[in-house]
């Protein structure tokens, strides 16, 4: 759908935001079609259940429509929606949880009594580009990330994929900063254990 044709004017992001703030119905449909698929993919990273992911996207738009008046345009519309969908996805996880959040097992390296590393590794020499270019390898690693315990997966996604700061993650997940750091380190080591054989 080309909103610029429908409302008969070329639209910059600023103009689109202005239309949204005016309550232009076409502009609402435009941003749903323009960014909805992208937001659905982001939601599915956190929520494996399709219906939950769609609910998170719907919640995102309803939140965005009601908050558009306060949108200051410091980030792009897409980035703003991206942040909202992550929040809504995390909220969905929290509302689905009946058990307390699981702890991430300690997968730390082993050290001797002087704190010296006992297990030594050899350097990974496999080309990252080649690994990523291999569809089955890529999908296998992605599946391993999806199969991590929920908290480990959330920490990895938020930090290593989304690039949030540890402070932002602490706020998003409502846990302490040291817990984010410990959990993130353990999550990375847990993933290491699961994919190491593919990297050798």
């Amino acid at each position, binding site marked *: 759908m080309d909103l610029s044709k429908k409302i008969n004017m070329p639209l910059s992001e600023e103009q689109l935001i202005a239309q949204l703030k005016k309550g232009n119905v076409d502009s*609402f*449909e435009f941003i*749903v*079609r323009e*960014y*909805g*698929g*992208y*937001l*659905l*993919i*982001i939601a599915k*990273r956190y929520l494996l259940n399709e219906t939950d992911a*769609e609910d998170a*996207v*719907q919640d995102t*738009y*309803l939140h965005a*429509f*009601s908050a558009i008046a306060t949108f200051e345009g410091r980030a792009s519309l897409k980035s703003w929606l991206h942040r909202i969908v992550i929040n809504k996805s995390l909220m969905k996880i929290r509302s689905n949880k009946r058990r307390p959040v699981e702890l991430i097992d*300690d997968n*730390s*390296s082993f*050290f001797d009594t*002087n*704190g*010296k*590393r006992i297990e*030594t*590794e*050899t*350097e*990974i020499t496999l080309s*990252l580009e080649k*690994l*990523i270019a291999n569809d089955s390898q*890529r999908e296998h*690693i*992605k599946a391993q*990330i999806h199969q991590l315990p929920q908290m480990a997966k959330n920490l*990895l*996604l938020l930090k*290593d*994929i989304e690039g949030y*700061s*540890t402070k932002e993650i602490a706020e998003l997940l409502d846990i302490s900063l*040291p*817990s984010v*750091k*410990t959990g*993130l*380190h353990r999550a*990375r080591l847990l*993933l*290491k254990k699961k*994919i190491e054989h593919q*990297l050798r």
Partner: protein
Amino acid sequence: MNIENKSSYPSTSDSISCETFESFIVDYIDGNLEGNQKRIFIQHLKECPACEIYLKNYEYRIQLSKSIFANDTDTPNIPNQLVDAILAAKKQID
């Protein structure tokens, strides 16, 4: 290892153990080590080949995670029924 329970960063000694080194990796990668802390961390890195390789591999896997998801949003597609549901829900609120 428990990062939460680690005692404070080394202040005067130039030598840290591999275990202490590892407990500061998250902060190092985030660029949150400064001054003496960073200097001592890097000093250990120079002196300990095992930790040097450990860090390289650790960073490789972070980059791998990032790359795995880098292109998965290239072909977004939203089902029409979801578009309809969102617009209908908005109408209800209006």
